[in-house]
């Protein structure tokens, strides 16, 4: 592997968001394609972060730094990716459900999935079922992610899935859900496609959905 690609991987893992844009530019100057930088530099770094986070060896602030670093690099190469017609893995619409203001978990999921090459459309917190429906219609994502951190707001996930069914677009997306009170059996019960216990698992699940 090219030296600069492994340096980029390391920069992502270390969360070195200051130097990364310059490194991405160097990589481009050396004649590397934007796609190579993404797939062989940035994503392996983010994969490593996901594995270590899942294992309890890395912590939330470190993941946030790595994600910020990833974004800084993506800002440099994204225009070129579009130019060269390289497709990202797909779109994911994510949001925290109605009545719920917790967004750290949801943001982490967004960042990990972005690190895995997805395009994230984050529609925020306290999101009404109909707003999810509208977002799915507008963006045609492959995956919809919902977060709820309260037993009292979990029900809004079910309401959102019903709203998608009523709009006739339930089967156009894979639905993954998460949050402290959420379980696999709740996911089965409300007809979601999967439950992820943490951001790294969510990113793994997203990759499986499109595999």
């Amino acid at each position, binding site marked *: 592997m090219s030296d600069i690609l492994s340096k980029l991987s390391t920069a992502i893992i270390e969360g070195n968001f200051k130097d990364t844009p310059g490194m991405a530019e160097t990589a481009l100057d050396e004649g590397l394609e934007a796609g190579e930088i993404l797939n062989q530099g940035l994503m392996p770094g983010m994969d490593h972060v996901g594995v270590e986070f899942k294992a309890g060896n890395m*912590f939330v602030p470190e993941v946030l730094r790595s994600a910020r670093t990833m974004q800084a690099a993506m800002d440099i190469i994204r225009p070129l990716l579009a130019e060269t017609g390289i497709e990202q893995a797909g779109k994911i619409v994510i949001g925290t459900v109605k009545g719920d*203001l917790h967004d750290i978990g949801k943001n982490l999921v967004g960042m990990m999935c972005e690190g895995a090459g997805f395009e994230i459309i984050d529609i925020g917190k306290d999101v009404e079922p109909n707003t999810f429906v509208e977002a799915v219609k507008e963006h045609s994502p492959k995956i919809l992610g919902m977060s709820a951190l309260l*037993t*009292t707001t979990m029900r809004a996930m079910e309401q959102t899935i019903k709203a998608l069914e009523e709009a006739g677009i339930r089967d156009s997306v894979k639905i993954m859900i998460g949050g402290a*009170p959420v379980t696999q059996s709740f996911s089965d019960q409300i007809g979601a496609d999967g439950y992820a216990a943490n951001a790294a698992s969510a990113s793994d699940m997203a990759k499986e959905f499109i595999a």
Partner: protein
Amino acid sequence: MAKNLSTFISSKTKTVEINRENPTVIIGERINPTGRKKLLNSLKEGNYDVVRADALSQIEAGAGILDVNAGVPGVDEEPIMRAMIQALTEVTDTPLCIDTADPISLEAALSIYEGKALINSINGEEEKLESILPLVKEYDAAVIALCMDDDGIPSTPQERFAVAAKMIERAGKLGIGPERIVIDPLALTMGADHNAGRIAIETIELVVAEFGVNVTMGASNISFGMPYRAHINSTFIAMSILAGLTCPITNPLEDEVNLAIQAADLVMGRDDFGMNWIKHYRKRQKKS
């Protein structure tokens, strides 16, 4: 500096006075089915044994007030809330903190509760102020007031203070004095913003200096995503007590946080002759 106010929370036979000169009052957080499978399943089956056991274990560990949350997904909250309060009243005279976002459950709970309850919670959102404050007044209750409003959670201590001032003013218009408002400055997660602890503590300092009100806080979120969470929680809670925190919502069964609270009380001169500290030491000795 405003005078320290006393908030009185009571059951039929027992009154707890929250004041900065008294030892810290722990509001036990465990009677809440969020993230507690055993409790959740027992409530679904209409069995209140876990609720009773949770009450007794928390009181034994030092809780002065018990938070009661009846949020079971997919189940009507009101009857569960009523049954929980009845079950708790059977086994303890420890005053209760009624924790619900649903005004119907809240009113049902207040109507059967004998005493001055603590309500959890209002915030600066218009809808909350309009639906809950009249109940605070009618039932002579006290209420936890979260420093956020229709625009979300402010990012600076000054803006959070402004929300607190607005809530105190709105309550005052209904004849609810500031001694019945317990401010929650909101402790967000340091893992997502390393200033979260400082912002909460500075908010406490501002509201205490201006209004002398009592202050609560859920202090365990602050360490989410970090290693050595108990150390962060206990240091944060001790520092917050110095700033003016008087009735944190915590799990009293977590020994490390409990110790930090008791030590902070001793440091603040609120534990006469250190008797509380020594009493708890002996209790631990016996257990081990």
